[in-house]
Structures are given as C-alpha cells and as structure tokens.
C-alpha cells in the first residue's frame, strides 16, 4: 500500500449568507486505496482532534448510486476520473505533492448551505412537475400485458440510470439542468406507459426548470463529460423534440 501527501484548498463558508473563501490544509499519509470521501473523513478527524470545525459535505451510500455526494475537484465535477461519483473516486488517481482545489457544486439554483454542502431541491421540484406516470396504487394491468421491445427498454434504462447528483448543472457554463430533466423525459417518452402524459410532461418539466433559474443548453457537452452514469446528451435532443412537438400542438 502506498501513501501520498497532499495540499488541499477547500471552500469554507459557514452558511448561505456568509462570505466564503478557500482554506489550505496539508494532509500527509493518505493511502491510495482510500476513496476521496474517506480522505475527507481523515481530514475531518484531524480537524476535530485539533478542535477545529470539520468540512461539511453531503454523502450517504458511498457506492455511487444515491447521488448525494459531489464536489468540484480541480475544476471538474466529481473529479478527474470518468463516470464515477466522488465516493467512488480513489486516491490512487492523485500523486504525492499534488494540490487539490475542492469547491461545492455551484449554480444559481443551488444555494450553498455550508462548505461543500448545497441545496439541490430544485431538481426534486422539476420531477414533481411531471417526472412520473400518473397511476394510483392498485388496478394496474398484468405486467406482461404491456410488451416493450428489449432495445427500447434498454434505451429507457440508459436514461433512467440518472442518480440526480446534479453534477451536470455544476459543470455547465450556462448552469443548465437539461441533462437531468431530459433523462426523465426521455425515459418516459421511450416507454408506452409514458405516452398518455407525454406532451404535458415535457411542457411542465421544462417550465419548472426555467422557473428554478437553470440556464439552457448550448451544446458545450460538459454535462455528459462529468456525468457519473454516462447519460448522453442525445437525451437533450430528445427533450427538445418532445418540447417542440408539445408546444406546437398543445401550447
């Protein structure tokens, strides 16, 4: 097992109203098998032992699926490794002597609550606007009465894999949540179950997205590059198509 020594520049901000700034910490003896969050745990234990305030950050499952963790490392949301969340990024991708700059996901729609911890409830409100099939519990037909071609189910699953971490927004120069929104619109537009509400869903979710203060897509593709689940921007194209079809026929 090898270990490395790091210099960390971490964004510290006590609350939403306060001004924030970078603080520098030296951290030695980091095992390269550690995950990035375990490295932050080690820093926090050290700070606590020194009687200082540990760095606040969101995290939960630590296996890359809950979507709760995330920070910008050296300018890249979830760090330098492709298709991983911060909890699945391991320290073997860094070198002894590196200086790492760690910041929260930044967006007009994500108020910073403390240090690296932000409020992403805007994403929930986009789903609440229509990211579902409106069926009540009970009285649904037999599962096999709705045949779905395997390829179609796979395409829907590609979009449904979104974990709602919001890294797409943090990496977008326009602060757009279009990858996130389009993933849900695509999943349901591709499936027969989603057809009934297809148009209203596209209109309602896009409207909510705008209301929350997110920007719009200009094909910078930064979102796709940082998405831990490899969600493709083809979904954004599909969402645009869904939206135009809806607005021309319904709006």
């Amino acid at each position: 097992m090898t270990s490395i020594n790091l210099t960390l520049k971490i964004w510290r901000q006590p609350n939403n109203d306060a001004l924030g700034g970078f603080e520098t910490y030296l951290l030695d003896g980091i095992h390269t098998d550690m995950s990035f969050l375990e490295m932050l745990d080690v820093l926090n234990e050290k700070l606590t032992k020194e009687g200082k305030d540990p760095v606040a950050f969101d995290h939960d499952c630590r296996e890359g699926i809950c979507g709760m963790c995330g920070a910008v490392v050296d300018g890249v949301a979830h760090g330098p490794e492709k298709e991983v969340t911060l909890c699945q990024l391991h320290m073997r991708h860094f070198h002894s002597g590196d200086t790492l700059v760690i910041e929260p996901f930044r967006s007009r729609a994500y108020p910073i609550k403390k240090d690296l911890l932000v409020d992403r409830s805007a994403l929930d409100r986009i789903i609440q606007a229509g990211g579902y099939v409106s069926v009540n519990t009970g009285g649904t037909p037999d599962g096999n009465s709705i045949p779905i071609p395997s390829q179609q189910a796979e395409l829907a699953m590609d979009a449904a894999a979104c974990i709602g971490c919001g890294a797409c927004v943090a990496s977008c120069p326009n602060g757009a949540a279009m990858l996130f929104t389009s993933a849900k619109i695509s999943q349901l537009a591709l499936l027969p179950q989603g057809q009934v509400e297809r148009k209203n869903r596209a209109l309602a979710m896009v409207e909510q997205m705008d209301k929350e203060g997110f920007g719009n897509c200009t094909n910078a593709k930064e979102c796709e590059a940082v998405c831990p689940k490899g969600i493709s921007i083809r979904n954004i194209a599909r969402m645009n198509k869904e939206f135009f079809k809806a607005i021309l026929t319904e709006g």
Partner: protein
Amino acid sequence: MELNSRAPSGPLEKKWSNHRFSNKLVNPANRRKFNIIVVGTGLAGASASATLAEQGYQVKTFCIQDSPRRAHSIAAQGGINAAKNYQNDGDSIHRLFYDTIKGGDFRAREANVYRLAEVSNQIIDQCVAQGVPFAREYGGTLANRSFGGAQVSRTFYARGQTGQQLLLGAYGALSRQIHAGRVKMYTRREMMDVVVVDGRAKGITVRNVMTGEIESHTADVVILATGGYGNVYFLSTNAMASNVTAAWRAHKRGAGFANPSFVQIHPTCIPVHGDYQSKLTLMSESLRNDGRVWVPKTKGDTRKAANIPESEREYYLENKYPSFGNLVPRDVASRNAKEQCDYGKGVGTTGLAVYLDFADAIKRDGKETIYKKYGNLFQMYEKITDSDPMVEPMMIYPAVHYTMGGLWVDYDLMTTIPGLFAIGECNFSDHGANRLGASALMQGLADGYFIIATSIAHYLGTNKIEVVSEHEAPFIDSKRWVEDRISKMLKNSVGGSAGKFTVDEIHKELGRLMWDNCGMGRNKAGLETALEELPKIRKKFWDSVYLPGTNKEINQSLERAGRVADFLEFGEIMIRDALTREESCGCHLREESQTEENEAKRDDANYSHVSVWEHVGSEEAPVMHKEPLVFEYVTPSQRSYK
C-alpha cells in the same frame, strides 16, 4: 406487554382476503380529516406515503437526506421476487411462500409470509405501470433470472440497479402527491422521538439538521419506515446515515423490539483494507454462479494467487458441500469464509479475505461470455481495488448487510404502541432468521403499496381519534427531553478537544466489539464479555466525546453522535437476545449448538418463537417476551446443503 399477532384464522390462502374484508374502512370523504406521519422515504416509506395520499389522507413525510430519492433502498442491486411464474418453471404463490419461510429457517409467521407472496405479483404490475424499465426478452415480455440459489426464475431486475429503479418509481408517485399538495414533504429532518399521548402514538419530534431546530409534528397515526440497524457494527454495506434511532426511540416509548440479534452477513463483499475505511461494498451474489471460492491449503501462504499451484489450493465449499458447492446459501458461505480465515488461511494484506476465482469459467465459456455477464461488477471491483478479476481472482469477505430483527408488529404491521406502525426493514416481519436474495425490495413495497393502507383504515375506523396539539404536555416534554440530551452530548466539548474522543473513534470501538462477539458465530463467553464491555464504551461516550460546533447550525458530528448514542444502548439488547437464543438458526451459528458435522443446529423444541424485548426503565435490564410460532401449513425441517 401483550403480543397479539392478530393473524387471521381460516385457510392459509384465504387469510388475507378474509382479513381485508373484516377490517374496517374509512369513507373516502372522511379520509382528508386524518393526518398521517410517515418517517423515511425508502421503498416502504415512499410507497406508503404515495398510496395513502392517493386514497385521500393528509400525509406528512420526513426524510433525513436532502431528497426522498436518496434513501438506501436505492443501492439494492439484484432484483425483486414475485410468484408470477412467467417462466412456466413451476413457481407459484405457495412455492414463494414456502421458500421464504424455509429460507428464514422457520422463524417467521406463516400468515404474514403467505400474504407477502400473495401480493408480490401486484407489485410487479404496479411498477411496470409506473414505467420502471425492467429487463425484457426480445419478444417484449418481462425477463427473469434465478437468484440466490432459487430453483425457479422469479427475480425481476433492471440491470444491476433494481433498487434504484423501483425507488425512483415510488419517488415519482410520491413526487406526484407532493405536487398535488396531498403530501407535505420535510427533507433533512431526523426523527428524535415518538410522542405518545394517552397510550397512543400522536406525533414525532424531529431535528432540522440544517438549522438545529427541534420541531413537533402531530398526527393521528405514525408510520416508521426507517430501515435497518446494520451500522451498529460501524462497517456494513448500509449507507452512512442508516441508523436505529427512530426504532430505538419508539422502543423506549413502549414498542417491543423483536429478534434484534438476527442480522444477515453477506458473503461476497469487498474486504476491509484499512482503519480509515468508512463502509463495505457488496458485490452481487450472482458472482458465485461462475466464481470458485478457494484459499491456500497451507496457513500463512503469502504467494500471489497465480503462483499457488492447483494442488495447493483448497476449494473448501466444493469439498465440504458437494451438491451445492459455491452456491450454498449466504449464511453457510459467510461462516465458512470466516472459518478459513480463523484457521489462518485468509489471503490479502489483512488475511481477512478468500479468493473468488473466474479462471475456470473463463477457460470454459471464453472471456467475452464472462465479461458480458459480470462486466459491470468487475468494473466496480476494479475501480475500488485496482485489480482486474479477469486477470487475477477477486478477493471477498463477508459483511453486515441486512437486519431481519426490528420493531415487533402484528399482522396489521402495528407495533405494541397503538397508532404506531412499522414497515419495511425496520419491522421484524417476514424474513425470519435469514432473508432470501431479492426479497427485501418485495417486502418494502408489499408493506407500503398493498398492506399498510388497510391497517390504517382499520385503526382509524375502530378507535376514537382525539385531536391533539403540539402545545400539549407530551409534545413539550418530548422536545425538552431531546434538547436536554443534545446539550448533554455537547457538554464535554467546552474545554476543547484534548484528551477526548471523536464520535467515529467510539463508533469503531463499538463496531469491533459487536463484530467480534455478536457477529456470524457467537458463544456464551464472548457474549457475556461483550455485555460487560459495552457499558464501558457507553460511559466513554458520555464522559468524553468531543463534538465541534453548536446545535444551532449544520453539525454533522452532532448528527452522528446522536445515532451512535442510540447504537450504544441498542447494542445491549442485541447481545442479550443472542445470549438467550441458545440455538443456531438462520444467519448465525451459536457455537454451542452444532451438529456432529459442525453445521448449525436449530432447536425447535425450545426456540420456535419470536423474542420480543420490552424496555422497562433505563436502570433495569430489559424484559423478554415470547410470541410462539405455530406452523400449520409447513413442517419445519433442518436445512442441509451437503
């Protein structure tokens, strides 16, 4: 403490429909007059919240994370069982019932397990209608796989992310009700207490983890869907925030806690690699379909796997269990791995791992076939360990995964506190002493979508429901108690951190004690030692835990401290429960209770019961009550996998 299971009489297959008919209903126009609190938004909590709101009740739902979609159900990989028999391979409701009750080593209630199997088919229909992208055959029908050694293919799946997709389905249904204004969602709230008024659950006390504010919420019914307590061991496959606090606070207010020592240890997890490690990662059990488990024949062999010749490898599962081989159930596989490591034959830097080798499967089926089957798991493994299972064998070790124990509930899923219900993993329910693979998702959704609403209607329809206010004494007292406890936790920090311990240091100490003495294998001496040691750790916590910051801000150390304080109390009934159950059953080996061949020996004559613990006071030892288990439709048999 009275334990009336309310399990309906009559023939097995009629029990649930008869019960639904005999239960009282609430008129649709009256439902809006009733307030329901749901704590937790995993599969059970989200599905219950959505279903009750659809029916017209006023629902308030609470979760600890920033969004209801984060709950740990999201991490389930494998799949969800249902008795659809779509594959025409002999499955039926009765077979799923039998497999579940047998898999649980005959320590669950017949009526409940049958109901679970019965509603399993509706769950699949519901999820399909929501647009859950289950795997499909080329003809468009739903695909199934065989899972966890089941002899039929009854498991529905969405790649390796079934839990995620089912949870997002339930989260969608919940989101729809939030949008409609029928569910009021409270995120970032941690439940600190149940408020009991005149013997009935009438609300909860929560802490807003963003502001530190302690809030009271009133309701006519409280439903806990707060998951399992595997994090008592510090290291487990659970999410970091998973905890016992809600269930434990309910227990201290009068809810019986059933079978707390029933914990499932999953055999295929990535081994521990250092003290800094924060959690363990599960690798799907399906790997054992093609991987061969082995250790070196000689103790302390430190050669690389590739340098150990075939003749010096011991395929202990294949040798010991010729008919099941590497596919023995979870408990048997886990126990044997630990045994090999205890002999000193473990591999890796810590000696706490065994090999899971795909070399023969690759030779037999070709690299491509194996990669197609397990590629995503291999990638996940490689990301974490930096080793490629296509080239060198995987290393695995058992880890705490699921807790079968939980709040005792009757057939209506009501605890021993009237008006307080428990659903999903936080109740003790349907898995007996061991849960089968792909059954946790099934149970969470069965409880939430199809069972709880009937129970709630019956409770509301048969009891006089008094309106309470948060200004009444029980709410004020509860709030004050919570605030005092937090102040007590923070009191040591005034003089600085010197000579004090962090929350994690104390939690790790507790975890080691529990893992060493109340894990897979248990014996009287070890359990008695643990019972003596635990109060010392508890004292250390209250005397010298250091918490930075205050209660009036985001304070993640304080959040963790509250949970650890409860684990430190809860651990005691786990140990006591393990101590009084002098038989081996389900997931654990009681070392004094073994067959001549060193296999687990169940003792039906003395232990065919649910052990239910009652809290009688902080200074007194808890009291155990028994709910006898009666088997009318199955004959308990000793499991054998030789």
